[in-house]
């Protein structure tokens, strides 16, 4: 059996351009992990259910295990690493998770962070119910959900207080 053909393409990941050669049937999660070294993106179920490979594509959350890399050439992809500020500081969502201790084994947490970013950029005043619905596709086997909800709802409240 021979390998599938390869394609050369340009990816835009976390604001940077990468020229890569990928297999035609290569899933985005493997390109991000194995070729670009972005460890936050993790394949767990391989079928778009668990959410540990969640990234933003064109600003929407997607499971990178369900996308072929060749499909996303030239389109902006953002991973949890790319949500940090330019100086490497944590994003407000990431900081909220740290402050609440909203992590255990943490394998699922970067995917949660990516999803929460999308949720709050869509609706900065997201209610508890909104956040729950948004996170329904991000599974956590350690069962950190309660702390995660607290981290996000506290963030929403504090940012609402900060707004004029």
């Amino acid at each position: 059996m021979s390998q599938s053909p390869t394609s050369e393409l340009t990816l835009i990941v976390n604001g940077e351009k990468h020229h890569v050669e990928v297999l035609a049937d290569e899933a985005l999660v493997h390109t991000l992990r194995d070729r670009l070294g972005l460890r936050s993106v993790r394949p767990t179920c391989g079928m778009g259910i668990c959410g540990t490979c969640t990234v933003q594509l064109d600003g929407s959350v997607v499971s990178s295990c369900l996308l072929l890399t060749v499909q996303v050439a030239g389109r902006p992809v953002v991973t949890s690493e790319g949500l940090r500020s330019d100086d490497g500081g944590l994003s407000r969502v990431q900081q909220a998770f740290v402050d609440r201790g909203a992590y255990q084994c943490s394998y699922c947490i970067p995917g949660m962070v990516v999803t929460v970013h999308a949720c709050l950029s869509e609706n900065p005043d997201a209610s508890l119910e909104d956040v729950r619905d948004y996170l329904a596709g991000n599974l956590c086997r350690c069962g950190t959900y309660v702390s995660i909800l607290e981290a996000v709802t506290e963030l929403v409240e504090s940012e609402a207080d900060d707004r004029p």
Partner: protein
Amino acid sequence: MPDAAERVVGTLMYTVDHSIEGMVHGKLVRSPYPHATILAVDISRAQASEGVLRVITGADIAAAAEIPNPLFGLARRDQPPLAMEKVRYAGDPVALVVADTPANARAAAESVMIDYDELPFVVDPEQALASGAPVLHELWPGNECGEWRLETGDTDGAMAAAEHLFESEYHSPMASPVPFEPHVAVAVWEGNSLDIWTATQWPAAVQGELAHMFDVSTERVRVRTFPLGGGYGSKSQLKIEPVVAAAARMMGRPVRVELDRDEVFLTVAKHPAKMWIRTGVDASGRFVAREMDLLYNGGAYAVLTPKAVAQGMLRSVGPYRFPNMRIRSRGVYTNTVPSGSFRGAMTNQCAFAYESHVDEIATGLGIDPVELRLKNLSCDGDRFATGQVMHDVHFHELVQDVTQVIGWNDSEPPPMSGRARGKGMAVILKTTAPGSRSEVRVELFADGRVLVHTSSVDMGQGVLGTLAQLTAHHLGVDFEAVTVLDPDTAATFDSMTAGSRTTHVADRAIREACESIRAQLALFAAEQMGVDPSELRFEAGSVAGPRGERLRYSEIVGRARVSAVVGEGVYQSAPSDALNEPPDVRGVVADHWHQGAVAVEVEVDLETGKVELQRCHGAAWAGRVVNPIRARQQSEGSIIFGIGPALFEELVVVDGQVSNPNLSDYMIPSILDVPIELTSSSLESADPDADIHGVGEMTIPAVAPAIANAIARATGARIRHLPLTPERVLRAILGAEQV
């Protein structure tokens, strides 16, 4: 946690992220048959595939001179790295294809041709015990995989004299721990020395068993691991390490294997159990006798089953007084996924049985189930069924805590029509792991840094943070100064990170190490100040002399001209031979008693049978809480973990095959399955030096029985099979036969 930012951003290194120079990649070929003789393995096409370096079979390993003892297993050495002569379950690894890339190994694995001769197979434990059943292992006729007994008092006499007798049978199915990081290992040999990085909870067990397999001294096997992306028992004992180490040995180069998701499901499962209980109760509602028969499905290989069924038996005693008791507990081989540890190991199954049973007794007697529990719970100074005197017993406090929070006696508004509402609770006992040992080495440097060498594995419980906190406390330094290193068997020995033991044992070992360092600092400081050590006083990070002089730790180390002041500490659990010789168990079986309770409120849709958890509260006896955030994560995480096997998780075997080895067909709790009101308590002693109790698994065993009891109180329907699926609930409500 010191590494919180890395955890949240996603840059934390797990074993799955580890690579070493020159490593090649293995893909396992697994049996499609539950029981079959291997007639021939044709590797020619696979061997000729692109990038393939070698295809290894069980026969190759059996013939390899450098692998003198290929069979492994901590309770029985019955498992080969790759099947030899026959396969014993659908999913048994038969060959390993090693190639330059994972993709090439995967592609070539499909072209390994194996001829099998199918054998009769058995997946039901009772059928496996029947005469004429297929035998999995010739060395263990009758498929026996452990048998234990526990007997105290005159059970038959007490049953005969009892006012009431209650008898039921309960079933807990196969389930899967589902760690998100898969099993993964990379091994490299240099001469007769093996370096292996593996996602394991038991580095020392991997070290010892691999040393035996290759007949090298344990010092020549170095096992390291990174924080785990979840363990929950699945990374206990040995899993893929033997085949990875064997391949690296035979090929003379580093080999890495990472399992696919379906393979993780096929590697280890929770012991399915059938549990029969009979209880004698006197006229005042006191339990006078208990009889149990426990039958555990061990799957195709022993792993730890012959010993685990003894733990299941001890834990089935539960938190109640029984003057007369007789239990038999058996494990049996079947042609299914090997059974192993699962969070709340050997406690979840029996707790579902005995706590459902207590509610059935209360219903039968017409009294409140909490009242019945309070009347029968064990107290300090009681004797456990093995004769051990119990101390530090707090079941009454736990029951009071959870019933108060859930509002046990409060009247609630009626549910919408078509729905029923009810509250339920359960309280559990778990024994601690027997015969365990932990060593730590603490090093204090002249720049003030403190390094802690331990082989406790961080798997989400935050042990690196907890151990740093304990070290800071016992040494009297800032938390930020302390770094806890990842596990390394070359540095320290630790039996395992399992059984909710680590914080309890590490506290003692670290205290001993820190006391040693402080004693050395006192000697150095006395010499440096020209005073007697007895005149010194320890303050935060420094030592003060009688005339107000003060030296910081770092100054003392620097002036002493040593590279570091080193303290070592050891925890060794009390020696006990209670579990050495089957079948009878007597004497000391636990260092202390793990204790937990859960109360829930549910609503049941009477048309669909769907159960909705409205509220849930869990409590663990912590003794002394080291870190409130992490203690809470353990209790609430345990509850959430427990919701899955209670309501919907089951690994289904059809025609000898696991039919749902994926996260679409095997569902685990999502955020939508978690009640909005989910809380927990970690109960503490008033004594600031109280014994630390593990809190990692204290609530999970109580979740399923609490929910089953709530369903019964809401609807009158008693369900004795897990999981409590809508179909089962609906059938029970309709009074139909249980499924």
